[in-house]
Every structure is written in structure tokens, then in C-alpha cells.
């Protein structure tokens, strides 16, 4: 099938099988390797990307679902060449260890903050409940999201 959609605000057209996973399209066709495969069954969240602003598993999203949609990957957050506030907060709060879960984690947090600029801790933990991090106890990750929320609100003022 011929597929037209948007990736990180740029139009993309390609020829693909309808059951090709978004994960493979991103990694293999578009060289966006920030998205990771940890389980291939929607359990670990490492492949989380945004589809029209909502977090989805790229391993469970197929090409046939993508027509006209807007996909945001981790690469889209720093399109200008500078890390965005969430990414910087993860670095500042040491919320990254091996980094394999980080891109999905940040995109889940991004989706939360787009809807709820002032989340409490329970909301943050709930928003990250689909993203497994084996290296941490989630403390620094939660702190990073809190910090990013605070900084984003300051920028917004």
C-alpha cells in the first residue's frame, strides 16, 4: 500500500505492506532509531511514540492505521538541535541509566504534560505505568517530570 503520514511534522510517503509495524517503519525506513523494541507485545513501553499527541506502542501500531496521522518520536523533540525541556530535565535529574527505556518514558511524560501542565505525583506515576525501567526505582524519573512541568509552566507565563 501507499502510505502518507507525518513524522515529526514532516510529510512522509512510502510504499509498504499494510501490516508493517510502525516500529519497523521508523527504525528501518526512516532511520529513527530512538524508538526501541523491548518486547514486541506492548508490555514494556520502550517503543512508545506519540500519534496525534497520544502515546502508542509502535510495536502494536500497523502501517494501515497511519494514513494522515502525525507521529512524534524522540528525534522530533530536539528537531532544532537543542534538547527540549523534558529531555534536559531527564539529564539534570540523572533520570537516565542505560537509556533503553528513556525515549519511551519521555514521550509518555510529554503526552501527560501536553494535557496536564500541573500534574501531581500520582498522575505522573500513572502516566508512566506503561513504561518499564529496570535500572531505577523511578524516583529520578518522577523528579524529572516534575521539574519539566515546573519549567514549562514558567516558560508559559
Amino acid at each position, binding site marked *: 500500500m501507499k502510505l502518507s503520514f507525518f513524522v515529526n511534522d514532516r510529510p512522509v510517503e512510502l510504499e509498504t505492506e499494510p501490516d508493517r509495524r510502525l516500529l519497523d517503519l521508523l527504525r528501518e525506513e526512516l532511520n529513527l532509531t530512538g524508538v*526501541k523494541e523491548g518486547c514486541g507485545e506492548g508490555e514494556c513501553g520502550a517503543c512508545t511514540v506519540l500519534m496525534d499527541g497520544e502515546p502508542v506502542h509502535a510495536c502494536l501500531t500497523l502501517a494501515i492505521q497511519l494514513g494522515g496521522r502525525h507521529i512524534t518520536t524522540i528525534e522530533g523533540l530536539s528537531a532544532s538541535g537543542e534538547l527540549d525541556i523534558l529531555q534536559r530535565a531527564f539529564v539534570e535529574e540523572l533520570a537516565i541509566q542505560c537509556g533503553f527505556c528513556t525515549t519511551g518514558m519521555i514521550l509518555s511524560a510529554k503526552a501527560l504534560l501536553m494535557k496536564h501542565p500541573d500534574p501531581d505525583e500520582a498522575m505522573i506515576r500513572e502516566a508512566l505505568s506503561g513504561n518499564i525501567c529496570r535500572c531505577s526505582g*523511578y*524516583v529520578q524519573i518522577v523528579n524529572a517530570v516534575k521539574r519539566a512541568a515546573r519549567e514549562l509552566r514558567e516558560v508559559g507565563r
Partner: protein
Amino acid sequence: MAHICLVRSTIPHGYVRAIHAEKALALPGVLGVFHCFNTSPRKFNRYRSRFSQELPEEERAFTDYVRFVGDRIGAVAAVSRDAAEKAARLIEVEYEELPYSVGFDDTLAGKNCLNGQSPVVGEFSAEHGTPPDADCVDVESLTQFPPIHHATMEPHVCVADYDPYQDQLTIYSPNQAVHGIRTTIADYLEMPYHRVRVVKATMGGSFGAKQEWFTEPVAALVAKQLGRPVKLVYTRAEAMTCSVVRGAVRASVRGKYLPDGALASLDVELVLDAGAYVGNANDYIASMYGKLFRCYRVPHVRYHARVISSNTPVSGAFRGWSAPEEALFMERNLDAAAAKLALDPVKLRLRNVLLPGDTDQKSGLPMEDIRIRDALLRGRELFAWDELLRADKAFNAASPRYRRGVGVGCGGHGNTYYPRHNDFGEARAMLNEDGTVQLAVTVHDHGCGTVTAMRMIAAEALDMPDRDIRLDEGDTAFTPIDFGCFASRTTFVLGKTVYNAACALRCTILDRASELFGLPREALYAEGAAVRSRLDPDAAIPYREVARAVMLRLRRNVTAEAGFANETNPGVTGAHFAHVEVDTWTGFTRVLDYLAVHDIGQAINPGMCAAQIQGAVQMGCGAALREELVVGKDGRCTSSLSKYHLFLAPDLPNIRVELLMDGRSAEGPYGAKSIGEVSFVPAAPAVCGAVNNALGSELGVLPFTPDRILNYLTEEGSH
């Protein structure tokens, strides 16, 4: 790049009698099918990390005698992963099935032994000290550490590239010992070591899962036969069932205590289920004996351990390497003693922990400034232990449904192989002509910031910004021979090695500056990436100028080499405190609060140390309450994260960490001790203790799933 998909046994035990690959070979894109009947019968040991280990070579790349569901029988190489997977599904295997065993009881009863052999494949006995002659209180306990999955978010992966014209093989993989892989693969493929290059790739977590070699030898064999680069990527199911697991350990312990709570004697009888291959299991049970002496004074111990082999996934390295299992049986016995003697669990531990100046009773080495007593005292205060005990008592009296309790766990570990094996590191340092520095040392960052820590150590020694220091990970073509990053030796041994190399480079810079600029050597010192003189406070020669002058005038580079061969292995310990709430209606346990106090010496990167400890607590809560790889009666093991539940962000409290930094090591860099493994040791025991405190129970078989809790409550209610 060719992609490999493995063909695995679908039965737990038996012989492969025939493989039909015609349909697979006919599929477009398939480059070859490799299996037990068309590849080398040579064997390797996945656990080999140095040439001098005496280990059985017990594993083929592809076997015709399968010992568990998932054993490797063959592989398809194809131009794409899709094609390789499709072709692998078309391969037909004929088996001759054999009886099999999957649990402790069947296996020990010898019902279905491996190929008619005894299921007991290893045994270790030891005794230390003299039995007490005073009257003692006997305390019995039974514990079982569950078989658990490392759950590295990145599954196992490896690329192998064979160049037939140079007869050179290059392996890229996330791993913990590039030279260990080189030893294993070169011996297995009968190649000289210099023709095998192993490069450490960026790693998405290991926890021991990537310190044994099963992807690399297979990919190497296929790459060599195909004469082209190949890539092997495990699925999550393969990572869960066909890599390594933490083998289950069952321990029966009889402790003897004096009425004041002093431990007088321990009698330990334990069994480790190694799964289908022996791998590291015999070293593992011997190492567990040594762990008994890393935290407590144990005047007398009799230890007897057996290794059994069953038709289940293969056991192997896992964070803590036998210390978490040891801590579980030790801490459970201490808790049982506290209950029997009506003593507070913290006070009982204070009565028995090692003190500064004590000696490791097995190795004879000083424990140096061990601070486990301080960790317990500090933790008791910060956690408000006494207040919580009182508050829980009131809460439990008022609540018909929920039970709250607190638990404490202690544990110790090492910082090096020494003295079980010798240990050393070597590093080279080089000053560039722009003043930046490059270091060559064989480190493997597991994802916990090792490279950053090493650069920080060097930056401190050279008094320059760490951003101006480059340090790459292990690459057998370029970095010095090393044993690998495990045994918690990275910061202690390799960190000190880097420190020594950085100091040697600083010394060389000062020597050359003295020589070239006519400055008295004894007045020179390094500060702010420049050579300065105490005789002339305004003079400053940047490192860059020294490097350039040396190249132009002396016709050489500014380089230095250094080694480090440690002669110590100080005590490194932690005390953990957990507060839990058990729902007696559902059996579900919540962790309400958690504090980890660690005797770390000098933390090189305190924020990353805290993050690593919190990760260990997450893993320990999992082992205590949720995580278990279950092998069914059909020999099939849990193979999906949908059936294997980890602790997630909403399930955990804000885990608190306290680092005690005054018990510095004599030899470690800046007094540092280890943290990666020791942080996991006390975690499951602390949670186990808290649940038992909540229920007034004596449970020791982990994990305390809702089923197990409800079964206990039902039985308790029926009595």
C-alpha cells in the same frame, strides 16, 4: 547484513533424530540453515571469562541432545529478519522424547534424571569455627529465592563479521567481558586470539544477563560459515527463557543463638537448581559460602550445598552473584530468632554485625572500616523504626482488613575477585596536542554510568574538566587485557587503575614541563589543566602547550601507563528498611515506604549511586512479592512480560537512599567501595521481613504473591 533466527527445541528433553530444512531453504532470501547435523560438534562453556578457569565445555552451538524447551537446535540465516523467522518456522524436527523433571522435588527424587545421570551435578561442603558449648536456642528456617528474569529492557543482541581474506572475526555485542568472549570464541572456533576482535557495544542493561556467552559463539559460527556479517537479536521470550535466569535456591537453616541474641552457629543445607546446563553453578554455591562472612560475625558454620540439573532454563549470573540468596536465608533466620527470643530485629542485628577492624573469617582479609553498624543505627533513626512499630500495632488492632509491618535486611558483598582469584587492571593515558586526554582501559558500562565515573576519577586526578577526557569501552583490539566488569570490581579495581594512569600522566606532564621550560620539578603541580609552580604563582603552562612542546622539541608523545593489583577487599554493606501493608482479603502487598542505607566509602557519582540503589530496591521488591519464572508441568517457562510482573512507577514509594561516606576503603579510588551488587543484597530480605512482621508469619518461600499470602491466611485460619 544477514539476520539469524534460531530454531529451538519444543520439548524439554530428548534427542533430535532428523531435521528437514528443504522448505526453509526454498524460501526466497534464505542464505543457509545450520543445525546439529551440519556444524561442528565442538563445545564451549558460556561462563568462561578467563583462560585459566577449569570448566567443562558442555554446550554446542546447536545440539542434538536437547535439555530444555528452548535449547538451540539450529539457525536460519536470511537477508531479512522476516525471512529468517518465516523460514525457521518451516523447519521440521523429529525428536525421540525422554522423561524430564522441572522442580526441586521431582529432580531430587531422581525420577527423571538427565539422560540417566544423577541429577546432583555438584556439591560443596565447608565448616568454619567450632560449635558452641553453651546452651543455645535453636532456630529453624526455610527460604527459597525464586527463579527470576533480569528483564534488561534491551534483549540480547550480537553482530558478528567474518573477513575470510584476513581470517579475522569481529564481534559487536553489549557484554560484560570482551576478553572473556574472545577466549571462549577463539578456543571454540580454533582461531588465534589476535584474529578475534570483540567490541563492547552500548548496553541496555545487564544485571549479569550479558556476562555469559550464548549469542556470540552462535553468531560467530554462522558468520564464519557464511563469510558475511550476521546479526542475532533475541525476542523477549528468548531473553526470558533461553538466556540465563537466576536459579532457584532453597535453603534450610538451623541457627543457634545465645539468649542475648548472639549468633553462635549456623547449619546450612541448600540446593541450587542450575537448570539444563551447569554453567557457573559449582562456583556459585562455593561463592555463597564466602558471602556468609561479609556482614556478620559467624563463630561457627557448617555449610552443605548441592547443585541439581533439571530440564528448565539455564541458571547463571545475576546481580549479587549468590549474596542475595545467602542474605535471604541469613536474614530470615535472624528474624525467626528475634521472634523466638522476643528481641527487636534491629537490636538483634546490631548484636551480630561486623565492626570496624574485624576480619573476613574466610579470606582472612581485613574488613577495614566496615560501617554496617552505623548503617543500622542511622536507618533506625531515619526510618523512625520504633515509632512505626508502635503505629503499626495500633493500626493492625483497628483494621479488620489490612496488616502493616516493618522489616530490616542487611547484606554484604565484595569489591573484587581477590582473593578468590587474583585481580588486576591496566590502563594507558595520552595527552593530545589540544590539551584533551584519551584513556584506554577495558571497562564495560552496564548502563549505570561507569564511563562517566571513570572520566570523573581521571578528571579529579588531572584537575581538568571531565568533558575533555575521552574513555571508550572495551575493545580487544585496542584496550588492555582484562577480566571483565563483574564481581563488583569495576569502580574499586578499574577505577583505581584509571586513577593510577591519570596520576602517571600528570606526573609525566610535570616532568616534561620541568625539562622543557626549565622549572624546578619539585615546585610544580597541576591545577586547572595547566602546570603551575609554587615559586611563581602567576606562571601557568596549559597542558596543551606541554603536549605541543614535547612533540615539536622532544619528538615524542605525552603518554603514561599504569596498573593496579589490589591486595584488599574491604567490607561493603548496606541496611534496608521496608514498611508494607498486606491486604488480607486479596493477599496483595503494598510497599508503603523504603529506606536504603549504604556503607559506600566515597561515592564517585552520588546521584547515579542513589539511582542504582533505587533500581536494586525495585528489583528486590519484585523478587520478594511478584517476580517468578514459572516452569509448568509441560516444561514451558513464563515467556512474556504480560505474565511476569515487575514493579512499575505507580507501585513504588519514593525510595529513600542514605549514603555513608566515612568508612573509606584503603585502596579504592578516593576511598570508594562497590555499590551495584551490594545494593540488591538486602532488598528482598527486608521486604520479606516486613510481610512476616505484618502477618506474624514465618514465610520464606518467595515471592509472596497474593496466592501464597491467601493460602497462608487460609491455613492459619483453619488451625
